[in-house]
């Protein structure tokens, strides 16, 4: 039996050798020797991982093997059988259990000396006091909304008097053979909201196409999902993970497709359209998660220059050979989260307020699903409280220029329950 590894010297020899040895790319001013105390700081810092899914499982493994000892992980999801092709900390017997709990326990078991605290809940369940305890946040999320919330929270937490309030955020994302890594130093470098238009929502199929002139199998599935389900209510509420519900939608879509002689409706396509499934594989998650953790290690140890103040974005494309694009994304002065100016919002003055409200959901630079709108002098539409909603509801029918008297360049403030801390400022630009 080999000697025990109590002090970890032997175990961490590769990592520590590199950390102790200066390389040609370390800043020349940094001539201090790396002392054992400095090596220890990594083990003393606390790092937060958001998501214990495809990226999250990899991130937990990578951070544990990068010398981080205090890790927290938040994920509200439970394990599904379709996770097993990539979320390698889970087994078939784990299906139905909490992702955060199973992942944390697995990595703790495998890597001696690491403490991982799981939180089986939503990120919105915690307040700033909770997030203040971390030195860094690494996100492996599949939801843009959760990223925006986390980003806004971290930007709002920055207090210029207190350097510890600045938490670098490293964000990964994947789709098929592609992915990206972003590093944000909140308030100092471009934030996730600055880059919102990179994630334009897909244009929705017009309702009249679904209702009267379907042409594609997707149109039949959306018809079953949006129209037939509402009309027939076969179950009290739609559970997209319940095979019985998906089967109901599939059958509805299929008979509609037959009526119009449209080929191509399958169970798998139905599931894909209804759940908006994005293809995901182990290898892409491995690439992006490791890239995120490489940046985390570099930021935490200064072992080499990290992404952030110069280049801050790496995109990876693996479907046609391999291509990476590493570049500097610029900060936006009209960013709703970290900027000070309002953004232009193109609207037709003949629109009703309802049309403006609807357009905010699909507008790439807004992406707000439940907006409330006011100007500095009056409330145009408020969803909450109910009394105010009822009072402002008649405005929805009125047109912007004639009905509500709004002028070109009018500033409006939009709020949305998904981002309680934020007020999105726009000025109207008439088309």
């Amino acid at each position, binding site marked *: *039996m*080999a000697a025990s*590894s109590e002090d*970890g010297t*032997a175990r*961490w*020899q*590769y*990592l520590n*050798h*590199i950390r102790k*040895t*200066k*390389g*040609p*790319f370390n800043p020349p001013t940094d001539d201090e020797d790396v002392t054992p105390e400095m090596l220890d700081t990594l083990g003393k810092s606390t790092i937060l991982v958001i998501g214990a899914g495809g990226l999250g499982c990899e991130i937990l*493994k*990578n951070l544990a*093997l990068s010398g981080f000892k205090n890790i927290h992980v938040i994920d509200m999801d439970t394990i599904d*059988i*379709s996770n*097993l*092709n*990539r979320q390698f900390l889970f*087994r078939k017997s784990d299906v139905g259990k909490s992702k955060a709990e199973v992942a944390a326990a697995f990595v703790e078991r495998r*890597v*001696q000396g690491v403490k991982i605290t799981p939180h089986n809940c939503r990120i919105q369940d915690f307040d700033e006091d909770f997030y203040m305890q971390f030195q860094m946040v690494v996100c492996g999320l599949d939801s843009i909304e959760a990223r925006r919330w986390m980003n806004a929270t971290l930007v709002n937490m920055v207090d210029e008097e207190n350097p510890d309030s600045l938490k670098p955020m490293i964000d990964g994302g994947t789709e*098929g053979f592609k992915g990206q890594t972003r590093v944000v130093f909140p308030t100092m470098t471009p934030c996730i909201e600055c880059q919102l238009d990179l994630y334009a929502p897909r244009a929705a199929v017009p309702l009249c196409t679904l209702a009267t*002139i379907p*042409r*594609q199998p997707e149109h039949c599935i959306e018809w079953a999902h949006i129209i037939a389900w509402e009309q027939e209510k076969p179950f009290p509420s739609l559970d997209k993970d319940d095979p019985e519900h998906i*089967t109901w939608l599939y059958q509805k879509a299929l008979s509609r497709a*037959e009526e119009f*002689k*449209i080929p191509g409706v399958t*169970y*798998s396509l139905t*599931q894909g359209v209804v759940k908006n*499934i994005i*293809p*995901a594989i*182990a*290898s*892409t998650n*491995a690439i992006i*998660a*490791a*890239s995120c*953790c*490489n*940046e985390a*290690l570099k930021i935490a140890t200064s072992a080499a220059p990290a992404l952030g103040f110069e*280049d801050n974005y790496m995109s*990876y494309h*693996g479907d*046609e*050979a*391999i291509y*990476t694009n*590493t570049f500097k994304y610029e900060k936006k002065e009209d960013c709703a989260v970290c900027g000070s100016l309002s953004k232009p919002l193109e609207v037709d003055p003949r629109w009703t307020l309802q049309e403006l409200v609807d357009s905010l959901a699909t507008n790439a630079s807004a992406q707000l699903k439940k907006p409330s709108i006011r100007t500095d002098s009056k409330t145009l539409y408020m969803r909450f409280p109910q009394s105010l909603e009822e009072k402002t509801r008649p405005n929805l029918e009125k047109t912007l220029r004639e009905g509500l008297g709004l002028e070109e360049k009018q500033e409006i403030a939009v709020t949305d329950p998904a981002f309680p801390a934020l007020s999105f400022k726009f000025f109207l630009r008439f088309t």
Partner: protein
Amino acid sequence: MTEIVMSQTPPILHGPSDKEKKYDRQLRLWAASGQAALESANILLVNSGCGTVGVETLKNLVLPGIGRFTIVDEAVVQNADLGVNFFLDETCLGKLRSKCCTELLQELNPDVQGEWFPKQQGTVELDQVLLDSPTYTLIMYTMPISPKDLAALKEYGQQHHTPLVAIHSAGFYSYFNIQLPGTFPIVDTHPEAERTIDLRLTKPWPELAQFAEEMTKDMDQLDDHEHGHLPYVVLLLHYLEKWKETHDGKLPTEYKAKLEFRETVAKSARTNNPEGGEENFQEAVAAVNRNIKEQTLESTLAEVFSHEASGNVNVKSSFWVIAGAIKEFHKKHGCLPLPGGLPDMKAQSSVYVKLQGLYKAKARKDSQEVLEIAKSLSDGRDVDSAEVDLFCKNASFVKLVNATTGDQDLKEQKANDSLAEVTMMPLSLFPIYLALSATTHEPTASVDQIKASVHSRLPAAADDMRVVQACEEVARAAGGELHNISALTGGMVAQEAIKIITKQYIPIDNTCIFDGIASRCQVLRL
């Protein structure tokens, strides 16, 4: 309506199987055919050094369900392994690394078979392992490797036409190199859907032309609803015919003519409606640029044709037979077989379905013709019609990997770098490859030893500032792997292995270098 439904056989409403559920997110990328190829793959990893990058690669292949893997590794697990390799734990100390990693990898997917060598601590005869094992689909080896083992693998690769992947990860750097056995053709390259659209607007076949003519012959008499639902394909065919009448039979393929043509189409929309325009006409205007152009042969396909003619192809696989048949087809018709897809467009359901049927029928007819040509060629008797269909559908995007022989070298890379400020291109990562490969057999070499080795290989490189820096950074690692860099490299190698095994998407040609300091890659042919 009820009648239609009743008259058809009720669909078989089987839900997905357990395996389809488990692999759902990847089947959406490479489908059942790709999955079947993975499941019959048998992969060898010859492991060494810190031993992490190869094991991380295998993890990303075991999860999606390769058939079988073997690890050859003489190392015995030490404390240092536990700080870098996730597929080992305390109980493995003092045991064979090959066996321990195999067992922990197999936990990830009970469908995958794992094997390891040596069976007992000591040395392993790689020759013997290769001789005794079922044929490998792909072999990966990590640095450092002994010259003897390297020679054995290269010989095996040549004999069995097995792709070899060399992987080297040290400190913040890595590279991997793929040696494919000869020219490697790929049909199912998965181009972006919008690139594959071929509407044949400039060269409609008779049925399509007739369909458009019938729909538009009394266009002005159509009511607003019908007029607003004429598919844009029909609109463009109609206005192209009218254009030709006034332009000596010429098509608007030149830039200026295209602008003018777009204007003509835009102006023909009815505007006396509440929307003040028609969506189908807007779609038509938007489709002009992409769809009205001279038919040209994609350069990748031209390469296939000339390669086929060059006599470089000794083994007449079905790929080359079908390529030959498509070349004949192209010579005869002046165009490729029709892919047959039709994008969505504003139209009445029944009209759209009819139009879609026209495109599909033409594609089937073209494919049938290619099949007949193929069967008439030598070696073409057993060509499979499904393979011909796929080839016809993808003909413009078929790709040859490893077809050229010219390698990129330092001189070319330095020339590019000297222009980098003007071209805004990032600097070459070739120096990283030079420095890393100088430690192929000697992982812990000193800076001076690495520089000397680079000098003996490429005297011109040794004084280059960026090469010197790369040598210093490689020496800094002293052969040690960083887990993140090896995990990232393992992800890239696994993606490439999947592309090679499934013959889908496009693998690199042939070396990928990763710089974990600047966070970027470069692919070079070396």
